[in-house]
């Protein structure tokens, strides 16, 4: 077990690549991603389907196919240790215990033919070495702590007896059973109603504060990012294209893609029948990324340079606000070409 004296960020991802070797070629799902996550903080990862956000999280806890079809490069430093260099046994000690994950669909992430109690106590007896009696007591406590009434009774029920929101609460109870230092929540509320979504996100926040966890919250919804994260990374076609504090991103997006994403969502503030500013076209094919910037074909501000040179993650005035664009939207809302080719 890693000593708790290790300082610095809890998680540091350095120049990470995850590629799938498919019959049609190499799919560059995560394409050179770097970021770090401080203890107790929440990092939002935003992007459309296919942007690589889920592959990134699955790479971190190493649950992608192990048949050699997935290629990796880069480092994932968790509490001073590089997870990519660990063997499967060492990784198993970390997965679930130090880093836990909550998935999008609570029906398919729970075992449908096992009682809920069993699914929670299993974690406690196998991973924490608890006696089965103690595990039962603890399981009831956990169910209670995720806001489900009649905890004792719930232990004897099956997932099918519960609503989607309740199932997701159980999935969260299992995830926090070992008091992980990092919780990765991959679209935890996408399958849920908006009222239940708010309850689950509030619950995650509460548990995070109580256990001083770091959370990686993966979502496509900028509204959720705005309310529940400290920092945010916007992903597009396998790359982080903008990264800064959440407040900064909301008030001052620099990337044309981030701006387009914000504008395309219907807002409650707009009158009915307001024409939405849709982003034209589709995200690029990861098997065949274009030369230069991968957003160029959908960008309102495209210039010649964008189709020949891929922009790196860089900063201008604010050193904490990174972006990958040749022609960023500047602070007054107009563009200034940069000479950092």
């Amino acid at each position, binding site marked *: 077990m890693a000593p708790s004296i290790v300082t610095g960020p809890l998680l540091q991802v350095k120049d990470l690549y995850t590629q799938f070797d498919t019959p049609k070629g190499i799919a560059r799902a995560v394409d050179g991603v770097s970021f770090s996550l401080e203890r107790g903080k929440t990092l939002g990862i935003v992007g459309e389907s296919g942007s690589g956000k889920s592959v990134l999280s699955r790479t971190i806890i190493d649950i992608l196919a192990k048949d050699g079809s997935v290629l990796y490069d880069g480092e994932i430093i968790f509490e001073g240790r590089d997870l990519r260099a660990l063997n499967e046994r060492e990784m198993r000690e970390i997965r679930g215990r130090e880093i836990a994950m909550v998935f999008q669909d609570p029906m398919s992430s729970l075992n449908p033919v096992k009682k809920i109690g069993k699914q929670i106590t299993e974690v406690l007896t196998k991973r924490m070495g608890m006696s089965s009696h103690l595990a039962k007591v603890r399981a009831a406590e956990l169910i209670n702590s995720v806001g489900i009434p009649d905890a004792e009774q719930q232990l004897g029920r099956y997932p099918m007896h519960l609503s989607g929101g309740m199932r997701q609460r159980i999935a969260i109870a299992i995830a926090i059973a070992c008091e992980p230092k990092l919780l990765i929540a991959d679209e935890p509320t996408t399958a849920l109603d908006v009222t239940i979504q708010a309850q689950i996100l509030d619950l995650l926040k509460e548990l995070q504060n109580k256990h001083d966890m770091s959370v990686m919250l993966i979502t496509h919804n900028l*509204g959720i990012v*705005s*309310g529940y994260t400290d920092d945010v990374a916007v992903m597009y076609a396998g790359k982080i294209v903008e990264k800064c504090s959440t407040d900064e991103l909301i008030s001052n997006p620099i990337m044309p893609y981030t701006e387009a994403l914000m504008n395309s969502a219907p807002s409650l503030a707009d009158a009915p029948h307001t024409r939405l500013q849709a982003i034209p076209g589709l995200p690029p094919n990861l098997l065949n990324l274009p030369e230069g910037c991968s957003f160029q074909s959908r960008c309102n501000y495209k210039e010649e340079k964008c189709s020949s040179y891929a922009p790196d993650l860089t900063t201008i005035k604010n050193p904490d606000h990174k972006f990958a664009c040749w022609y960023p939207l500047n602070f007054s809302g107009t563009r200034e070409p940069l000479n950092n080719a």
Partner: protein
Amino acid sequence: MPDDQMLNSEPLLEVNGVTVEYNMQGARFDAISDINLSIEKGETLGLVGESGCGKSTMGRAIIQLPSPTFGSVKFLGKEITGLSHNEMRPIRKSMQIIFQDPISSLNPRRRVRNIVAEPLVISGIKKKDEIDHKVREALNAVGMDPDIAMDRRPHEFSGGQCQRICIARALILEPDLVICDEPVSALDVSVQAQILNLLEDMKERYGLTLLFISHDLAVVKNVSDRVAVMYLGKVCELAQSEQLYKAPAHPYTAGLIATIPEVGDKGATKSLALKGEIPSPLNPPSGCRFRNRCPIAQDKCTTDEPILNEIVSGHQVACHFPLIEQ
């Protein structure tokens, strides 16, 4: 809204006292009960609510799949409940439906040309040229290049493109009413905007009337002229969309609006956020169905069921203690 139609007071669709009963494990319950709605020609009526509130059942009851257990559905002035399968067939031409998951609603083994042409074939059009011409026109209308798309199969397209194909198929018979059941819920936000804009364009081009079913209040506001909010099988509020979002009268509507995460929001629970979950329709609460989640429920709510009542012109609410002045 088309003003020439306004003089003609007959609504395109009139739903009166519609109840749909289902059987579950021997117990009968109402998926929707005693619903009254009307949709004017050229109007978009939004239908919102949580999963299990009966909004999809409502959409299906209108197209008689299945027919409602009680009540009447009048389409273009004609009663359509109780029609036989054969009598219903010509009417189906003028009502179409678009589903949530565009990929599973397209047959993966057929080519786009045949998928989009199917309604024409069923309606008895046999001429190859005519079918070909109409399919091209429909695909063009939804922003797809017929030369590229026609001979491909659904798996070669993204979710957004599949939804365009579904829309082309729904529009090829030039229906009067299109029921959109969560048409953008499975799509990414950037694609969602494309499809919402497309639906607005199609509405204009084909003079459509839409029933737009969604759980997403921001999406519903964007497309709807009027919005009906459903809770546990009943309509609890109905108003012009602007009015509904500006001054919701039902605590449930207010709670729904308050829970939407919007860009610029700063975290956690707002005072109106809803607690708990929608109860089972097998055993709805006595009195007001919303009372056990309602922040302002009183004794009266346990005993008396509030009925849908017009409190301001065009604004109906089923609540004993509506949030706006009467």
